[in-house]
């Protein structure tokens, strides 16, 4: 006989209450674990896809929309900007690097992005097979594009008009896959990358096709080489010095027809909006944990009332007051630890399942096998709460007048 086995005997005797408390605690901690896991991984993902970009310049409109479309490829662009102005930005002494992006078409729902090979370096991606694009109509595709579409180096495919699947196919202007990128877990995995010239060429052909014009090949080439009114969708900028942060956005927004948006600012704003939602769920999780602590308290308090005589008999058999208090604390801790452990397993399991089964979660590389540094605190919190719950009953039992309880028996 020892305190754990005695505690176990009591917990087993009131199995239903014990299970309820453990389940309540498991649900609470599980909810919090899911939030922590998904939250941190989402934030990591967002930060990773914005890394190296200080400013995004595009057409006027919603700054958040500009950021979402240019960095995360999840919203439609605000419009296009003249190539000349984009090139002027690249030449600005405040700018260290400017990477243009031209959007417009897609392939099976994957966006075709016309850009410089510098974009690959910016995303810290590497080539898994083949090489980077060089000539127009060459394409290097992201890992998931290759996987889902079954593309290999040397394959050819036609783009579709528009950014979502279902647009009219651009026939007669096929892309050739020259390379496949290694997986990064980032947005680039889902992009088809090609020179900007390809986008322009397809765009022109599309227009000409619809206009019914009959340009010969030579004229087309000339037009592509010397664009009078070429456009890009956005430009990703990296500052040369911190001073640029103070001057450049204001100057662009005030003096040009373009819009400049800083990813850091917009994402903070977005997260504060989304944060309200996650805070609510997190609050709900905490509420579950708190109510399970309360439930443990009620269970133990009732137990000490129902067990008054038991505890008094143990005292009469020689148990010290400390031992009785320890017994109750052990019961609470056992419930607390089991509930929390179950909650951790539940939370990690649920996130891992989602990461495997839900396509969107899989795309983002969501995994349940990550163990955030905040988790030990969750354990400590749950342990502290269950001890707190046991404290009043334990003190009650500690102070009980054994003689009075036994005489009233």
């Amino acid at each position, binding site marked *: *006989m*020892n305190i754990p086995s*005695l505690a176990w*005997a*009591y917990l*087993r*005797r009131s199995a239903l209450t014990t299970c309820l408390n453990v389940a309540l605690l498991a649900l609470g901690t599980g909810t919090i674990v899911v939030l922590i896991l998904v939250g941190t991984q989402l934030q990591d993902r967002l930060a990773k896809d914005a890394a190296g970009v200080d400013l995004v310049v595009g057409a006027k409109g919603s700054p958040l929309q500009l950021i979402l479309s240019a960095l995360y490829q999840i919203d439609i662009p605000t419009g296009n900007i003249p190539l000349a102005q984009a090139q002027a930005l690249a030449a600005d002494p405040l700018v260290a690097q400017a990477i243009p992006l031209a959007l417009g078409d897609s392939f099976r729902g994957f966006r075709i992005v016309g850009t410089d090979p510098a974009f690959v370096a910016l995303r810290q991606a590497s080539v898994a097979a083949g090489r980077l694009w060089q000539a127009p109509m060459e394409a290097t595709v992201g890992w998931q594009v290759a996987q889902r579409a079954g593309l290999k180096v040397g394959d050819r495919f036609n783009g579709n008009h528009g950014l979502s699947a279902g647009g009219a196919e651009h026939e007669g202007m096929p892309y050739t896959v020259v390379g496949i990128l290694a997986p990064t877990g980032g947005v680039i995995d889902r992009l088809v990358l090609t020179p900007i010239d390809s986008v322009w060429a397809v765009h022109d052909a599309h227009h000409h096709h619809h206009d019914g014009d009959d340009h010969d090949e030579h004229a087309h080439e000339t037009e592509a080489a010397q664009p009078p009114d070429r456009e890009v969708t956005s430009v990703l900028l990296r500052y040369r010095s911190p001073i640029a942060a103070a001057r450049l956005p204001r100057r662009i927004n005030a003096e040009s027809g373009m819009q400049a948006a800083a990813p850091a600012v917009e994402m903070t704003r977005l997260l504060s909006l989304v944060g309200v939602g996650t805070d609510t769920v997190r609050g709900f999780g905490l509420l579950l944990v708190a109510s399970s602590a309360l439930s443990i308290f009620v269970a133990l308090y009732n137990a000490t009332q129902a067990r008054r*005589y*038991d505890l008094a*008999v*143990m*005292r*009469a*058999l*020689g*148990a*010290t*007051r*400390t*031992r009785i208090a320890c017994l109750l604390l052990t019961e609470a801790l056992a419930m607390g630890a089991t509930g929390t452990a179950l909650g951790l397993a539940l939370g990690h399991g649920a996130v891992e399942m989602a990461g495997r089964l839900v396509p969107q979660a899989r795309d983002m590389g969501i995994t349940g096998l990550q163990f955030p540094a905040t988790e030990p605190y969750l354990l400590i919190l749950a342990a502290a709460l269950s001890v707190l719950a046991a404290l009043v009953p334990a003190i009650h039992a500690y102070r009980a007048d*054994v*003689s009075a309880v*036994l*005489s009233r*028996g």
Partner: protein
Amino acid sequence: MPLIDVTGLRHAIAGRPVLDIPHWSVESGRHCLLLGPSGSGKTTLIHALAGLKRPDQGRILLDGQAVWDLAAAGRDALRGRLIGIVFQTLHLVPALDVAQNLHLARWLAGLPRDTRAVAGALDRVGLGNRLGARPEQLSQGEKQRVAIARAVVTAPKLILADEPTSALDDENCARVLDLLLEQAEVCGATLLVATHDGRTRDRIADRLELPKLGAPARTTLGEGHAA
């Protein structure tokens, strides 16, 4: 040295005197009846002896140790080591089976785990085959025997039995008393039986009589006592 040595014990409850024992002692190995009508303070005295209820005045020596000079934990330890208690309501711990109830008593008395001692104690009260039974599965008589086994499994020097026979018919009264005496003999313990039950009078010669209303107690010693 007497096992129990009480001097100048006085206790009042709610301003009403309950106990007045100028002097009372019980030699080691002898048994004693604690007689008195209901409300005469028998339970109060037993609790005072066991270190559960501090008396207003007086000194209680158990095996030479002044019970109420000890700190709380020391009293708990002394009680566990020296005393076995049989409650009138028996009160086995319902969450534990029969054997575990005895293991519990040994553990609380600070004794090592001893499956043979537990089995032996249950065997001696005729329950050698009910080790794994739950208290609620036992008859009243079986519970009584488990309670007695639990009191002696720690090999106490003093067995305190508070009204062990009051709720029993004549036959069972005699049987329980026999069992208590027999078990006390086995472990060489002193048996103190508190009762208002006249049927026990002829079984134990030494007695302390507690009159009603806190009048001084009277001691009677039976045969064989070294005067």
